[in-house]
């Protein structure tokens, strides 16, 4: 138990505590990564394969073969008993417990084989049918568009208005600044989760219920964002602004030509946070959006639950498509996110 709680040890041979540590980490990898990986693998299984119990680790698809005289490719089976035992046959149709098959080299002669005497010929392959179905049967692109629109527009607005406020609060000395700061600190304590009812009324009065704007606007002014940016802007020397004033720059120009470029690292952190919040947002969109054509991906995923009596095939594919963009974006920006989230407390 003991030495593994501290870190100051030389680089000699692996101590037993090191083994314990690596064991824990490997278990961690299995537990943290495994489920998501399992979901991704499952999404590439055919619907038949999804029904398979016990589930198999890898996605299998049945071998299909084109047989002369039949327009569609036919599923291939291996016969396990009877006169054709050991041969691969293509199934034409199945009637009850009897399967009518043909030999690929003799496509005219139909042979009857009891279904218990045949086994499908399978190989590991990714089935994309779930994804194809998602695009064909459901309004996936609409959901994707809604989510993307909300994320992109909300992030732009958040960056713009929060950086403007942070600029005012960090670089101007005006009466009432303390009050504004106090009010913003105050809002840190009031998450939207506890003002849902009146928020709904106000957004309704603005005519924004069941519109994407009704999701975008209420969360655009985040105290976290203002703080993060203000803290950063305070480190920009005032003399640079004075120099720009001597250079005949207007205050607005100082904001966007000097302050914005110099705050780029902080803006990047806020952008990442905003993208994450918006893409993953759930409760407020659940309340504010009502018609299905306005649903975000998260709402669509949630609504799949009851409506289709859990159509896992589509649901799995859609889940993967929902998590891929965010994971992809963040795979590149891992360092930024970690520091960003750690420095702001995440929300």
């Amino acid at each position, binding site marked *: 138990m003991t*030495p*593994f*709680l*501290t*870190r100051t040890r030389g680089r000699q041979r692996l101590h037993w505590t*090191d083994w314990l540590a690596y064991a*824990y980490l490997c278990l*961690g*990898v299995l537990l*943290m990564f495994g*489920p*998501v990986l*399992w*979901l991704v693998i*499952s999404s590439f299984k055919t619907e038949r394969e999804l029904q398979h119990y*016990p*589930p198999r680790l890898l996605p299998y698809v049945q071998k299909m073969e084109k047989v002369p005289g039949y327009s569609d490719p036919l599923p291939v089976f291996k016969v396990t008993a009877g006169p054709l035992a050991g041969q691969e046959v293509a199934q034409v149709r199945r009637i009850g417990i009897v399967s009518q098959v043909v030999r690929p080299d003799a496509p005219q002669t139909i042979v009857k084989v009891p279904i218990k005497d045949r086994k499908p010929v399978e190989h590991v392959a990714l089935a994309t049918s779930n994804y194809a179905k998602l695009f064909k049967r459901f309004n996936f692109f609409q959901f994707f568009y809604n989510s993307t629109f909300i994320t992109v527009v909300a992030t732009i607005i958040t960056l*713009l*208005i929060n950086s403007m*406020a942070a600029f*005012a*609060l960090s670089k101007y000395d005006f009466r009432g*600044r303390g009050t504004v700061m106090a009010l*913003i600190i105050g*809002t840190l*304590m009031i998450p939207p*989760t*506890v*003002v*849902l*009812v*009146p*928020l*709904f009324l106000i957004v*309704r009065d603005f005519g924004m219920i069941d519109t994407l704007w009704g999701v975008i606007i209420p*969360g655009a*002014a985040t105290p976290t964002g*203002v703080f993060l940016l203000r803290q950063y802007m305070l480190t920009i020397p005032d003399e640079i602004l004075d120099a720009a004033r001597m250079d005949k720059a207007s*205050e*607005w120009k100082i*904001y*966007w030509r000097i302050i914005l470029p110099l705050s780029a690292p902080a803006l990047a952190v806020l952008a990442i946070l905003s993208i994450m919040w918006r*893409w*993953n947002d*759930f*409760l407020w969109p*659940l*309340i504010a959006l009502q018609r299905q054509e306005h649903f975000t991906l*998260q709402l669509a*995923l949630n609504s799949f639950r009851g409506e289709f009596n859990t159509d*896992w095939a589509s649901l799995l594919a859609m*889940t993967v498509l*929902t998590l891929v963009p*965010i*994971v992809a974006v*963040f795979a590149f920006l*891992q360092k930024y996110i*970690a520091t960003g*989230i750690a420095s702001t407390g*995440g929300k």
Partner: protein
Amino acid sequence: MLKLITPFMQIVDVPMRALQGLLGPRRLAWVFLLPNLFVFGFFTFLPVILNFFYATTGSDHILLQDRPFVGMTNFGQLMNCQSYLDPNTCQIDVFWRAVHNTLWFIVLQVGFMVVFSMITALILNRKIRARGFFRAVFFFPVLLSPVVVALVWKWILQDQGALNAVLDYLGYPTVNWLLSPTWAFAWSIFLSVWFHMGFYTLILLAGLQAIPRDVYEAAAMDAASPWRVFRKITLPLLMPTMVVVMVLALIKGVQTFDEIYAFTGGGPGSATTLVIQYIYQNGFSAAPRLFGLASAASILVAIVLVALTAVQLWITRRNANG
């Protein structure tokens, strides 16, 4: 990037220049604050005020003028219990069940979370290979959406899912996890810890790395045993971070809704219904829409949150000063 926004900024420059001439540079600050204050004002302050109006009026109308004043009736109903320990004796038993669930939920969730993120942070803080990779592994669920997390685990826990298959293979009886109240609740806590652990691990890891190396070196010179080093140096120096982690986890725990709602829908029965879900259902999903009760309940939650946040701010300030 700059090229992209230049035309927009140049257009805005014209009215801003005029305003600067009119107001002078100092009062221009208010113009910069305006958009933010507008959004804050309408979508944060105003709702806070209106929440009190909703909480003190009745009926299922959303418009305030249609709602009769009922005073503290909504709070009275919510608090009307013979024994707060037994939801069945309460007038609004669902609310109290949600409160009980939430309390158990946060106690267990925060407890497990702190323990596991602490262990993970300590291990990640050792000299290990591929530390970046392992850190990312524990952190990445934080990026996922609550709905995705819920579905990932539902897929594993479903009747014919991977977990049951493994149990089957090992010869144990299978369980229909999400149909059993106890298991559903246990898995909810598990899922929540799985989801958020990486975040707290990261904070604790930063706290551990902020402990100066020379302190450990001094301890090594003093021939302190590893266990003593942990007890007497690591733990005390990490304590402020631990407290922050705990309070943050509490604040977030009270507000939990998304992942559990998407995971169990609050069921079976109301076994996993948490307070925020109670508010959501009363105000937005079930008819009649009891906005008054929803608002009253959210004010109670807000009081808890404000208290917790005040503690948090106090601690952060004290840490910053000390």
